């Protein structure tokens, strides 16, 4: 475990600007304001920062695309609508490092030419939203936010918006719809938010954790930032570890860290035998056997090679006591409940699948129901309009592959 972006978690008072600056806070912003916006973008590209929300997209390229748009009105948005079950890393950052997030936003706004920023916090994190509002006030008083920041010509201010209970609003275009006062229905991409975003203006959307890396890049400089992680994925990743470990919580590890270290050394668990399965990347990620733990390293390219995705970086360790049927039923119920309802395959498919997993929980499913699960999950993956529908059945299929003998008692229809 390292203390890279999580060094501020040691702060006693998250609202103490002095404590934050003593640990290196706002050194990055000072460096940024002394450079040209284009230089700032180039440094982020050089540092190889990638999105930490789940997509792992090169952040610098996103910034570059927005900075090149010719529109006098641009926005930067912090996506704090963390909703992927198993994930709670952003919550910890919101609770403990509000200044870090805000500094990251100010830097990103300067780089792309945005004058207005919005932090979209999920409705269930209302306390964290209040904390951000207080932190913003403190920064305004210190001339680190608002008009003419640090006596430069750069003006930028931030508002905090909250959601009201919709997992789909974590999807960036659904998030935009929500801020605009509409139902959180994902938009067609392209065009991407970088070109046509909030109210049609170029909008940069970054995850909380991604933004927390930004001040560090400018405090240390790109070269030093590259000390951790891999060539393709420099830096660190926050892992949300939960389940049958002694020490659940968030852990900051360099990209490429072995999963075994996370589960056994950091999380602490007696041995592999008590583990039934591990789910990586939250509920939309795949489940796999504990026998695979040793071959897994937390790096998107390496994971892709073995058919897994990092996603939000959530690691859930299921003990042998976990009833797979209950787990699956709750998982499918989640997607059914959170489906926005726009597209037929997800809206109807998730409902049918939830009904079958409910029967499964209560005992048996027929051969036809098993065939239905296969067809519907494939069609959802193929035709759903957004990531929710496309990945809703990943856990279903992976668990059925792992444990088919255990809970699919096929009887004659």
């Amino acid at each position, binding site marked *: 475990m390292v203390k890279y972006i999580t060094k501020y978690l040691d702060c006693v008072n998250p609202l103490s600007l002095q404590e934050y600056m003593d640990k290196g806070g706002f050194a990055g912003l000072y460096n940024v304001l002394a450079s040209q916006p284009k230089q700032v973008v180039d440094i982020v590209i050089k540092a190889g920062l990638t999105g930490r929300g789940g997509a792992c997209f090169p952040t610098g390229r996103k910034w570059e695309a927005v900075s090149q748009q010719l529109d006098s009105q641009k926005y930067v948005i912090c996506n704090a609508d963390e*909703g992927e079950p198993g*994930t709670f890393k*952003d919550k910890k950052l919101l609770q403990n490092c509000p200044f870090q997030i805000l500094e990251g936003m100010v830097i990103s706004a300067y780089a792309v030419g945005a004058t207005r920023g919005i932090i979209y916090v999920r409705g269930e994190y209302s306390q964290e939203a209040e904390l951000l509002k207080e932190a913003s006030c403190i920064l305004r008083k210190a001339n680190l936010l608002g008009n003419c920041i640090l006596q430069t010509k750069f003006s930028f201010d931030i508002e905090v*918006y909250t959601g009201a209970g919709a997992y789909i609003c974590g999807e960036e275009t659904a998030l935009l719809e929500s801020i605009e006062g509409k139902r959180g229905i994902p938009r067609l991409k392209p065009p991407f938010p970088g070109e046509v975003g909030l109210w049609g203006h170029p909008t940069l959307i970054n995850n909380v954790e991604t933004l927390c890396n930004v001040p560090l890049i400018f405090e240390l400089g790109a070269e030093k930032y590259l000390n951790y992680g891999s060539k393709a994925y420099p830096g660190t990743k926050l892992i949300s570890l*939960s389940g049958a470990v002694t020490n*659940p919580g968030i852990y900051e590890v360099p990209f490429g860290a072995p999963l075994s270290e996370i589960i056994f050394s950091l999380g602490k668990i007696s041995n592999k035998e008590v583990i039934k399965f591990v789910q990586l990347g939250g*509920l939309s990620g795949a489940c796999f056997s504990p026998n695979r733990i040793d071959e897994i390293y937390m790096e998107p390219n390496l994971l892709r090679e073995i058919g897994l995705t990092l996603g939000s970086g959530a690691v859930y360790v299921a003990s042998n006591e976990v009833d797979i049927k209950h787990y699956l039923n709750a998982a499918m119920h989640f997607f059914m409940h959170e489906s926005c309802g726009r597209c037929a395959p997800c809206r109807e498919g998730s409902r049918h699948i939830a009904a079958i997993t409910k029967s499964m929980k209560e005992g048996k499913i027929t051969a036809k129901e098993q065939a239905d699960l296969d067809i519907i999950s494939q069609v959802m993956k193929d035709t759903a309009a957004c990531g929710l529908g496309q990945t809703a059945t990943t856990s279903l299929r992976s668990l059925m592959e792992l444990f088919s003998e255990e809970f699919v008692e096929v009887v004659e229809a």
Partner: protein
Amino acid sequence: MNYDDKNKVMIGDKGQHLLEALILAQHDSGDNSLSEGKLEDISGQLDIPLSRVLEVTTFYSLLSTTPRGHNIIQLCDSPICITSGKHNITELFEEALGIQVGETTPDGMFTLEQTSCIGACDVSPAALINGVAIGNLDKSKIDAILCKYREEAENDG
């Protein structure tokens, strides 16, 4: 849906305060809900068609159009919370309150609901109580929490 100029012209940026207005109105309502009258008020004040206000209200699960109790208990029903803990937290709450999920206690003190993952997976099983996450729930903790709210109500009343 593709961003569309027509939509922009019709509602413009009036919508940006809609969700905030709804959340605040629900908070101040006294019964944790949004009445039809209140929705019409908001529609008029923000100059947004009532159909749009209703669309938003019925989309987001933390907003309610039916009156609820003074204290809202929302049990996390994510697979991690559901399968953790030795006991069924839902059953424990139902027993302690004497109601089922989706109902409100006769004295109007508590409404029991289920909600999607609240980001407290490291302290599962967890619930949101009046918007605050409480984790590591078990029978004694549940009893203590309910007791505390009941005492507070008595002292206020």
